């Protein structure tokens, strides 16, 4: 059996054929896509599975639990527009009610307004500064 050490020692990334000629076309590794097709992963280009995305860029997050023999389901939908354009990133709501989003992975938010303010500050490549002076 090959040890973990032998496995990693043999892997290099310096050759284009190892990672594809153009990263742009490298969506997910083939074996991961294969698993995703079987319904066991979520491909960021293939729609948003259990999170319903709609035409306005809204995201619905579904939380379910049981309490005292009762079944509970809570759907939360956010419609966010920035400068009139729908926000298309991925959002979800944790059990504690905080907003979690792919774009700011190291933070969760009690306020969606705070989230959008931070989003604009963190992504100046996407949201150019409009404030004067």
């Amino acid at each position, binding site marked *: 059996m090959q040890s973990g050490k032998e496995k*990693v020692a043999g892997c290099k990334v310096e050759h284009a054929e190892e990672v594809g000629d153009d990263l742009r076309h490298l969506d997910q*590794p083939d074996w*991961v896509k294969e698993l995703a097709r079987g*319904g066991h992963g979520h491909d960021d280009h293939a729609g948003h599975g*259990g999170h319903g995305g709609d035409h306005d860029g809204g995201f619905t997050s579904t939380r379910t639990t049981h309490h005292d023999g009762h079944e509970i389901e809570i759907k939360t939908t956010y419609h966010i527009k920035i400068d009139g354009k729908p926000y*298309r990133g991925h959002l979800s709501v944790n059990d504690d009610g905080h907003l979690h989003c792919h774009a700011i992975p*190291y933070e969760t938010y009690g306020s969606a307004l705070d989230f959008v303010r931070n989003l604009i500050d963190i*992504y100046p*490549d996407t949201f150019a500064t409009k404030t004067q002076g």
Partner: protein
Amino acid sequence: MIRHNILTNDVARQNFVQGCLALKAEPLGTTRYSTYDYFAFWHHRAMNFMTPPGNSAGRNAAHAGPVFGPWHRFLLIVFENQIRRVLNEDDFRLPYWDWAADAASPAGSPLWGPDVLGGSGNPVRSGPFRDGSGFNIRLTQDGNSDDWMDVDRPLRRGFNIFGTTVPSATEVTNSINSFPFYERQPYNNDVSSFRWDLEIPLHSTVHRFVGGDMMTTTSPNDPVFFLHHCNIDRIWARWQSTYPQALYLPRQTAPDTYRFHREDDRMHTFLDINLTPADILDYTVYYDYDILN
């Protein structure tokens, strides 16, 4: 071979800086990207792959679940191997930033000096990765789509904008003492565990303190990512030595819902390598730490 504290080992510091610059200068095949950029790309793709689809807790192929520890250990070893190759220094091992030692004044750490990483700024204007050094960011997450976009601009840091502290040595010790178990059901951020404590209060706080490029899914764009995660790996190693009988969880008998996180699952990679969490629990075949605490 030993992983050292970057602030107390000049050779490790110089090799790390030179290694990052050399990997940034090395074209990745015929693309406009470099070998260095590959790590930001890989991290972004793993982080945007939800496991399973639609889980509201944000668990993905590298974060918010059990594989957080092993997957980042894997990425660091691959990066370390690349520096060894590009510098032709087989004894090189990644250094770490013991941020807890700088908790009283993280912005005042010598780490941000001109001969280590340079300081805060948009763009960063000091140190080896400063604006004009050639260490340009070539790809970043698109803030509006979760995909990534091409850019060609200098590195950004913003201390104290999204977070003003880094965890203290007491917080690290408390984390280790509080959790004799690695994970527990439902293996996500809705319940606490050592993995949760390591990832959320300890690890994420440091990303927020540094700010700038460290706030995004392409955070390996900032070399401090590797020094920070090396320290996170060191804390996990300390936890492993504190609880040598504790198991990695979940075992392979857990349902497919936990695919990418179970002990014998293949971890997310573009490389032709089938590496599992179980393969990588014993890190001593790759490196050791000078001190664990």
